[in-house]
Each structure stands twice: as structure tokens, then as C-alpha cells.
């Protein structure tokens, strides 16, 4: 008989996600993914100044901050027909890269590693042996026996006091953990180091955008000014600071993240054949080298792959009414002309229609509506988005730098390219693109310095700043790649105000419920057939779902009618 297991909330993610899975004969026979909180930014934005939208949408999430601001300013610029100066593009790229570096490293060490690394087992490690292994995979200078025994003592204090703290919530000792104690100890040591490092790299946002989370953006450019001869602008001191942060990031990624990823992956190669899920991949592309309007020069190329055919990259267009469309058949929304229709975001609707059970409940009615996420489709196909999709489209587009990084890593793991279609492939792809992004960031930095040297310091195009220069009605789409995948905002402007605004976010693509035709989205599909060692400790579900880096905060968000958060934490 099938056993229904429920994981709610899935922890070590941002936001609220519920997975219901049916386990039959030790394998997952069916799976349902539900976003259990509602977002509603679309409603909040109606009637506002389009130039303000970035500040609202950016606040969808504090983890992948900046990404919604970028998609937002792009959709407004697209509607108004304004191109930003090259320096503004470069500053946006630098902020984008910093976001990826921080986000991916935090995901690997703090949200995902503990699915593979057993913290408690690290106490049994021999520090000298740990140092030997660490030194054999990387020349990171901290890998001495003394260093690892110090880390071990810190963990021991946690465990002995009965307060595991940040390590409290996990299935320690689960049979699916395969690493030797020494590799576990390396993982834990770098978990702690990554915590320190991640707060450094975000300073790139602080320098250009004034703060992190939620740095400032601007429709038409970047809000900061460049002037090497003034103490108030982005000058040589500020730029040198950015340069140092990039160099530190490169070191951390090359000497810590990638070696750890490769070492851990080598013990879990069976996960190269688990969790593949959908066979379709969608990428909007990002990191423009010669302007946002020239996608052929993006570092992450735009395109779609169907049925894992890497030899054919399909063209993706955000303004084509037949490409991206959203269903609400299984989502708690109501469409005016019937829930069997799929709507392009320019004519998208956001009307809540909760039909689910009253909490607390045991199971969702998955035959009806069961999620606050809509179900986006590309030409009616369910698509996976994210690092794996990006690398596959770049690979299929013949990008040499991407191919080289993939080939090198898979060579070391003795795995074919097709191994990427898996849980471990997704996790590896995230690490490999982090490596690429760190190097690209250095390139963008060089380009910015070179522009300044050549006398171009412009960061803003004021042509369309004043609303009186706008047409009465305008429509725009802003395509981007959030760390978690394809992100786009669609805007309709009327009489200088937002008439309609729709966000279709990466986790909506991946975590959405079924569509009209009963097709699963990426999370649900990826869980099918997953072997479960112990259904009461569903570590395997966590591995696959975490491999997508769920960030449900931007897919769903809860406010009361006055716009206040429902949850409040208070001390007195």
C-alpha cells in the first residue's frame, strides 16, 4: 500500500514549501508541491509609479535580493524604450555577480551541504588525516591539523551542551550519509568559514547600491555616480575595494567551494542518476556584455531545450503571447474567463480564490487547487529553470568557457554530460556556474575601469526619466536570471501609472502544481522514483528539492489586508 508522507515546511529554504509524496515499495510513486503562502505583489503595485516598482518587488525576498529590482527596472525601461549607459550595465552586472556568488555559496554550505555532510560524524574525524585530505584537494591556507581540531572542539562544545544550534534540525546518522568523518569535518569547517565570507562579498552591493539586503536601483541607469577625482562618488578607493572583494571571492570559490563540491560529489555519484525530472529547460539569459538589447552577447545565453536535445536551442521571447503563459487550474486563483485558460503575463490576473482545507489539515486535495503558486508554461511545456538549465543552454549554444568548465569537472568525476540531468548534476551545475561568474565578474570590473580611464563615467540616461516624456500606454518585459533561474517581470503602464504588473519567478516554474493537462512541474517530476531508505526521515526528498535551491519567498508572501506581516516575533 502507498504511504503518504508530508514534509511541511521543507526547512533550510527561504519561504514556505510543502511536499506531499506517496511512497510505494520504497520509492516515490507520486509527488505534490505546494506553496502555502500567498504573495500578491501584483495587487500591491497597481496604480503606483512604475519607477518605484523595483523597490517593492526587490523586497519579495532578502536572500536573492537585487534580482527583482533588476527585472523590474528592465521591464520599465523596455516599456519606455530607454537603454542604459554601458557603465550602468556593468555596475548591474557586478551586483548580479556578487549576488550569485553569495547566494550559491550560502546555498551550498548552509542550505544544502547538510543533506550530504553529517555534522555529528565530523566529531569522529582525525584532524591530521583531515588536514592531509584537505591539502590534497586544495591549497587553501587554513588546512592545518590544528585548525581542524579547533573546529572539531567548537562543534563538540555545541553537541555536549545539547545545543546543536544551527545544526539542530537534521537526520544525523541517517544511512544515506556516505562521507568519511574527515570529509564531514572539512564540510563543517567550511560551513563556518563561508558564513564569514558571505558577508564580505555583499559589500559590492553596499558600495554601488548603499546597502544589502535591498540595494538601490534606478530606472534608466545606476543611482551611483563615477568620478575618480571626487570623494563622494565611486572613486578609486571604492573601486579598489570592489576589486579586493572580487579577488577574495575568486580565491574562496576556486580553493574552497569547488574542491569541496568535487570531493563530496565523488562519494555520492549514485545521485547522478536520481532526481532528473523534467526534460525541458528554459533560460532567459543574462549578464549583457554589449547591452541588454543584444542577447547574443549575454554571458548566459537565452534559449530553451526540449526533451534534453542539446543540439537544438529554441528561441525564447518574453513578448510573444504564445510562449510564457500561466495556468491556475490547480492554484488558488480565479481567472475571469475560466480557470482552464492560460494567460500571458501582460494580460495576467491575480485574484485570490482559496479553496483548500482549513489549517491544520492532514492532506491537501490535490485533485483540486492545492498551491498559491500559479503554473507557468513555455509553449505549453513544463520547464526546469536554474543553474542546470543555464549551463545546458550555454553548452548547447557552443559556449567554450562553459563547455570547458563542465568537461573538466565531469572528467574528474568520470561522468558523462548526461549525468547532469540529476539531483547531483543540478548541485554541481550551481558550483560550476559560480566559478564562471567569479571570473566573468573580474572581466566586468576590468571593463568598468577601462571605461572610466577612457573618460566615460556616465551611469544614467535621463531621456525618459520624466513621466511627461512617456506615451499614454506602454508595455514592457524585463527578462533576467535569478540565481534560482529564469525570472521575468511584465508591466503595462497607463497614464504614468502601473495598470498591470506580473512577476513570474524561478520557483514558480520549478515548484508549481500541475497544469490543466495534469503535467507535473519540475519539483514534482524530479521526485518520481526516488528511492527512500526510511520514509520517516525523508532525507532523499530534501536532497532533490534542495538541489533546486527553493526560494518560495518570492513565489509566495503573506500579508494581511493592511499590508502587515501576519507573523510577528516579539521579545519583552
Amino acid at each position, binding site marked *: 500500500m502507498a504511504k503518504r508522507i508530508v514534509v511541511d515546511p521543507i526547512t533550510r529554504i527561504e519561504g514556505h514549501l510543502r511536499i506531499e509524496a506517496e511512497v510505494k515499495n520504497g520509492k516515490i510513486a507520486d509527488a505534490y508541491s505546494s506553496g502555502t503562502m500567498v504573495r500578491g505583489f501584483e495587487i500591491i503595485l497597481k496604480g503606483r509609479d512604475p519607477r518605484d516598482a523595483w*523597490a*517593492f518587488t526587490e523586497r519579495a525576498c532578502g536572500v536573492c535580493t537585487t534580482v527583482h529590482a533588476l527585472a523590474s527596472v528592465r521591464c520599465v525601461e523596455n516599456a519606455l524604450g530607454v537603454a542604459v549607459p554601458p557603465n550602468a550595465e556593468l555596475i548591474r552586472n557586478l551586483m548580479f555577480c556578487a549576488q550569485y556568488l553569495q547566494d550559491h555559496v550560502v546555498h551550498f554550505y548552509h542550505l544544502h551541504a547538510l543533506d550530504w555532510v553529517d555534522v555529528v560524524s565530523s566529531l569522529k574525524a582525525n584532524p591530521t588525516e583531515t588536514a592531509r585530505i584537505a591539502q590534497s584537494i586544495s591549497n587553501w591556507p587554513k588546512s592545518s591539523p590544528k585548525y581542524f581540531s579547533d573546529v572539531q572542539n567548537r562543534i563538540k562544545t555545541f553537541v555536549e551542551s545539547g545545543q546543536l544550534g544551527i545544526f539542530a534540525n537534521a537526520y544525523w546518522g541517517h544511512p544515506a550519509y556516505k562521507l568519511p568523518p574527515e570529509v564531514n569535518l572539512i564540510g563543517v569547517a567550511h560551513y563556518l568559514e563561508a558564513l564569514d565570507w558571505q558577508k564580505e562579498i555583499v559589500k559590492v552591493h553596499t558600495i554601488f547600491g*548603499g546597502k544589502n539586503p535591498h540595494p*538601490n536601483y534606478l530606472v534608466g541607469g545606476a*543611482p551611483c555616480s563615477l568620478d575618480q577625482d571626487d570623494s*563622494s*562618488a*565611486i572613486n578609486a578607493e571604492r573601486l579598489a575595494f570592489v576589486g579586493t572583494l572580487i579577488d577574495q571571492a575568486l580565491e574562496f570559490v576556486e580553493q574552497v567551494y569547488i574542491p569541496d563540491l568535487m570531493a563530496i560529489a565523488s562519494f555520492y555519484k549514485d545521485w547522478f542518476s536520481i532526481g532528473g525530472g523534467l526534460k525541458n529547460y528554459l533560460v532567459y539569459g543574462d549578464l549583457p556584455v554589449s547591452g541588454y538589447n543584444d542577447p547574443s552577447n549575454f554571458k548566459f545565453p537565452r534559449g530553451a531545450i526540449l526533451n534534453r536535445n542539446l543540439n537544438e536551442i529554441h528561441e525564447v521571447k518574453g513578448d510573444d503571447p504564445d510562449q510564457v503563459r500561466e495556468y491556475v487550474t490547480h492554484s488558488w486563483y480565479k481567472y475571469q474567463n475560466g480557470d482552464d485558460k492560460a494567460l500571458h503575463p501582460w494580460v495576467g490576473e491575480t485574484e485570490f480564490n482559496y479553496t483548500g482545507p482549513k489549517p491544520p489539515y492532514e492532506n491537501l486535495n490535490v485533485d483540486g487547487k492545492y498551491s498559491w503558486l500559479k503554473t507557468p508554461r513555455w509553449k505549453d511545456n513544463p520547464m526546469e529553470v536554474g543553474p542546470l538549465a543555464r549551463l545546458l543552454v550555454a553548452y548547447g549554444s557552443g559556449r567554450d568557457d562553459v563547455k570547458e568548465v563542465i568537461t573538466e569537472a565531469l572528467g574528474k568525476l568520470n561522468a558523462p554530460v548526461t549525468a547532469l540531468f540529476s539531483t547531483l548534476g543540478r548541485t554541481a551545475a550551481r558550483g560550476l556556474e559560480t566559478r564562471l561568474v567569479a571570473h566573468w565578474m573580474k572581466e566586468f570590473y576590468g571593463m568598468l575601469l577601462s571605461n572610466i580611464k577612457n573618460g566615460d563615467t556616465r551611469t544614467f540616461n*535621463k531621456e525618459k526619466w520624466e513621466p511627461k516624456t512617456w506615451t499614454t500606454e506602454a508595455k514592457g518585459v524585463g527578462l533576467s536570471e535569478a540565481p534560482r533561474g529564469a525570472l521575468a517581470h511584465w508591466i503595462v503602464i497607463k497614464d504614468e501609472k502601473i495598470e498591470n504588473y506580473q512577476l513570474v519567478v524561478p520557483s514558480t516554474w520549478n515548484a508549481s502544481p500541475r497544469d490543466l493537462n495534469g503535467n507535473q512541474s519540475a519539483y514534482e517530476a524530479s521526485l518520481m522514483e526516488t528511492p527512500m531508505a526510511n520514509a520517516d526521515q525523508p532525507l532523499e526528498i530534501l536532497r532533490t528539492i534542495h538541489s533546486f535551491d527553493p526560494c518560495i519567498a518570492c513565489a509566495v508572501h503573506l500579508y494581511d489586508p493592511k*499590508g502587515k506581516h501576519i507573523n510577528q516575533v516579539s521579545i519583552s
Partner: protein
Amino acid sequence: MIKVPGCPPIGEVMAGVIVYVLAFGRLPQLDGLGRPKAFYAKRVHDSCYRRPFYDAGLFVESWDDESAKRGHCLYKMGCRGPVTYNACGITRWNDGVSYPIQSGHGCIGCSEESFWDNGPFYRHLASFPGFGIETTADKIGTVVGAVTVGGMAAHAISTNIRKRKLIKDKIEENNQKADKEEGGK
């Protein structure tokens, strides 16, 4: 209850509040809205390093113009510093690296009640209800002397005369209001 507003609040401020409770074993002094005075007693405007330019009447008129490069005041670009109580200008963000105004964008007032509905963000403040009052502005009467750029001095002086009149009126209005509120308690 201690309120530490901001979207998000400054990390160091959050830490500071927790350290206060742990180190001193009591709640920090709070203002009328429950915010720790240590971090929320001053307006961003009062601690802004660009404040001298406000006082001198030197403003950014358009993004990335010459004034923007010189770090002049962002008031005309919609800066909410004058009506926002927070420690951004003092503590700054992410280990003191910068804060929104230092990086060229006005404050959007994210630590103020319902800040998202106090917009739009780029319209300058005077046209808004609840426009803050220059409580420390009485100290700035002599600021004209600080303006050294000849070409700008005339403009600055006339701006200041207008502004000082406005400030004076506002202070009086504010004092009357404060008296009333005081009487009501």
C-alpha cells in the same frame, strides 16, 4: 516590545539591541513608538554627511549630474532622510561600508511606518503631508559663510533665505503642536 523597524533593519542595529539586553540585563530606552533611542532618536537627515550641502542649498537636480558626482544633497530627488528615523548615517551598512545616500540614491524611508505608501519615492518631500520639521535648523543660520564656490553662492543664499523662512514657520507650528500634545498627556 522592542520595535526595530527597517526593510530590513541594519544588521548591526539588530545585534546592538540584542547585545544591549544581554549585556545590561534590561530593555534599552525606547521612544514613543517602541524603538530603541540608541538607534532611532535621530533622523537620517540629521546625521547625513551631505547635510552641509542641504544647508548650503546645493542639490542634485538630475541623476548623475555634476552635483551628484560632488555628493550634494538628494532632497530634490525624493530623499526621505528628513522624515526618517534611523541610524543609517551613523552606523551605515554592512560593517559601515556605505548607506543609500552615500551611494547616490535618496533614502526611501524604509524604517518608517507604511513607508511603501508614503510615495512615490522620487517626488520630493515638500509636497507631502507629514513633512518633517528642521528641529536642528536653528543652528544653521550662519551656513552661508561655508559656501565658498563663488558662482553658487548667490543661488545658495537666496535658497537659504527662503528655506530659513520656511523652517522658522515650521518650527513655530511644530512647537504649538508639541505644546498641545504635551498638554493632552
